[in-house]
């Protein structure tokens, strides 16, 4: 048994939580929803334990580092942040339908980390470029931002489904929160994500300046994070414009999350300084 095995198990716990949330939503039952919350908490605990365990494993191997240095480790942390941010939303707004759209994302991130055959989950010592305290601050803030955007994406999907069914015919949408609450929640999540994305870009810039002497070098990952930033900045400003409420904003939130995903995964296909994120 090691941390990777624990995290593989956590994958299935997330899966169970997602299934329970979906059952609770589709069959409009209270009990599966309550169980789902508990299961998600267990998954979060396991996820966090796996993270800390991996940290201590690296120390036992003689080159301890905070496990946020490659794709596997970042995915593990990503699903942790998604689940934690979701639980806070659930607690604040007392609505479990959102769980059916948020926990699958945590599950998918963890499943990609644990089950993808090409995933390298070995604990390797850090290369010189990554040996910096800024690494931790940079990765944590970026992924808090990403998780805010991920949940905003889930809520925007709910909003779009809700708006398509104008007559309120679909029984599935009956327990969705009101459209304006969904709109407001998307806004809240995007503000949260935008703050942390900005801090993530800033910590990255400060780190780059201390490591390479330039705080910005237009490398593809930097540029894509800025593209993401532009899209969400558009979202925040478009709310102030007449005729831009509702559907258009929800689509913008979906596009923004696509940009997040490309910043995260797609950029590895392009050449650049962030190639260790592979």
């Amino acid at each position, binding site marked *: 048994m090691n941390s990777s095995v624990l995290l593989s198990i956590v994958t299935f716990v997330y899966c169970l939580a997602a299934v329970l949330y979906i059952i609770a939503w589709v069959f409009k039952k209270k009990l599966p929803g309550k169980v789902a919350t508990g299961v998600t908490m267990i998954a979060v605990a396991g996820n966090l334990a796996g993270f800390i365990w991996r940290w201590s494993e690296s120390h036992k191997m003689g080159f301890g580092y905070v496990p946020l240095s490659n794709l596997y480790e970042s995915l593990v942390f990503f699903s942790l942040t998604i689940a934690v941010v979701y639980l806070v939303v659930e607690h604040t707004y007392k609505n479990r339908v959102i769980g059916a759209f948020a926990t699958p994302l945590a599950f998918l991130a963890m499943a990609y980390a644990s089950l993808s055959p090409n995933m390298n989950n070995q604990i390797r*010592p850090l290369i010189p470029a990554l040996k910096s305290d800024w690494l931790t601050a940079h990765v944590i803030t970026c992924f808090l931002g990403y998780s805010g955007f991920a949940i905003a994406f889930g809520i925007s999907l709910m909003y779009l489904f809700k708006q398509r069914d104008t007559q309120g015919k679909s029984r599935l949408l009956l327990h969705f929160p009101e459209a304006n609450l969904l709109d407001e929640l998307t806004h809240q999540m995007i503000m949260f994500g935008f*703050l942390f994305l900005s801090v993530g870009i800033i910590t990255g810039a400060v780190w780059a*300046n201390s*490591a390479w002497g330039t705080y910005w070098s237009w490398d593809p990952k930097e540029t894509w994070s800025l593209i993401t930033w532009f899209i969400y900045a558009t979202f925040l400003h*478009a709310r102030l414009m007449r005729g831009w409420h509702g559907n258009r904003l929800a689509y913008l939130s979906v596009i923004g999350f696509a940009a997040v995903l490309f910043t995260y995964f797609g*950029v590895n296909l*392009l050449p650049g300084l962030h190639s260790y994120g592979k």
Partner: protein
Amino acid sequence: MEREDISSNYFEKLWKFFTSVRLTVVLLLSLAATSVIGTVIPQNESNSAYFQEYGEVLYRIFYGFGFFDMYHSWWFQAMLIILTVNIVVCSLDRLSATWKIIFSNPPKFNVSRFRKLSNKEEFTADYSPEQLKDSYKPVISKAFGYSRVEETDEGVCIFAEKGRWTRLGVYIVHISVILLLVGGLFGSIFGFEGFVNIPEGSATDHIRLRKTSQIKALDFTIQCDKFNVSFYDSGAPREYRSGLTILEGDKPVLTRDIIVNDPLRYKGINIFQSSYGTMPENADSMKGRAITLSFTSNATGMVYIKKAVFGKKTDLPENMGKFIIKDFDNDYNFRGHKIGKVFIGTVLPTEGEPLDIVIPPFSNFDRMRGGDFAVSVTAYEQHYYTGLQITKDPGVLIVYSGFIMMIIGFLITFFMSHRRVCVEMTAAGEKTTVMVAGMATKNKMGMEIRTKKLSQRLAGIHPSPY
């Protein structure tokens, strides 16, 4: 007179154009869309590489649009300038109104605006408006910073508010963006970015600029005392370390090691560990260097490790004679194949003719010879050069203050708001109708919940009879 009218009319139109949020949205989306280009087309490579990659037609088109250095192209920079003007004009345009709200003393309240709110709360209390007012006032003024009582046309009313200053948050964010752009511009005008390779034991005061490939003189000298690279067991690099001394004239003024992520800063110039390499060697430069040899005897299978010196004889194990390394080649031609760096050694057996053998370092190449023993070089004293990145950016301070302002601005704009409540008490016979209405600049849902809570709290207050 007429001409002035026309020009002021133009000015007004221009002003109006730059105050629109629509322009902001269009600019942000255009910046997002065009920025993609530079992530797909590699930036700042050589023209011949581009020509090869894209062919003549595409090359000409891309070149014309400046796609090979698109983030510095005139049209991208123009968008940034228009965005800057947009931000400045928008902020100025709205600031006067915000200013009036923030600094009007006493703050203005309009009871009819509160009455019109759709989500106001109402309840009936068994006391007179006067009684209620006296017991509500301390509760409300404690929850909010500012409160006052006013007579209205229908009764009496308590106004309260807090966080008026948070309306400035968005301006702080906008100033921070301007600072980032100005700092970037300042750095690109007054800063530079260059690199230099310095062999161990050498010094230089000239560097090469990255952008233009021009030579630039520094007003001090950088000396590389030594360079070290260490590896993990897996072979991955662990650390690159350069021992540097800064010289003013001939006088050393500062000696320090630098590693990746820990640069040296001197006179506003930053010196970073960036790359390294080995110096080209030959028989002369190698003379006297320490070499670790490993001999594997064919007869006994024993492995002997020996420390030798380039150009000096050493004893072979098992009384096989003597051995000397006498030459070094950077790219040896072995039977028509270039095999890179090799040492050339000579075996002087106890009996028989001397024999020259070729030994590429860190390899078991010599086994192929099938001699009495196989020799390999497992380590040798290498001389490195260190690759340093040298930068100066006087805009960094401006950019960093922009970073700090941006974070503070976001915290204010996203998570704080100007909240106002109005509690109006109107006599209705023996009883009193109490209206509780609240508004906020942000998070309207949160304000609704707060208003509801305040209303419940007030409804639970029973003034004690006099």
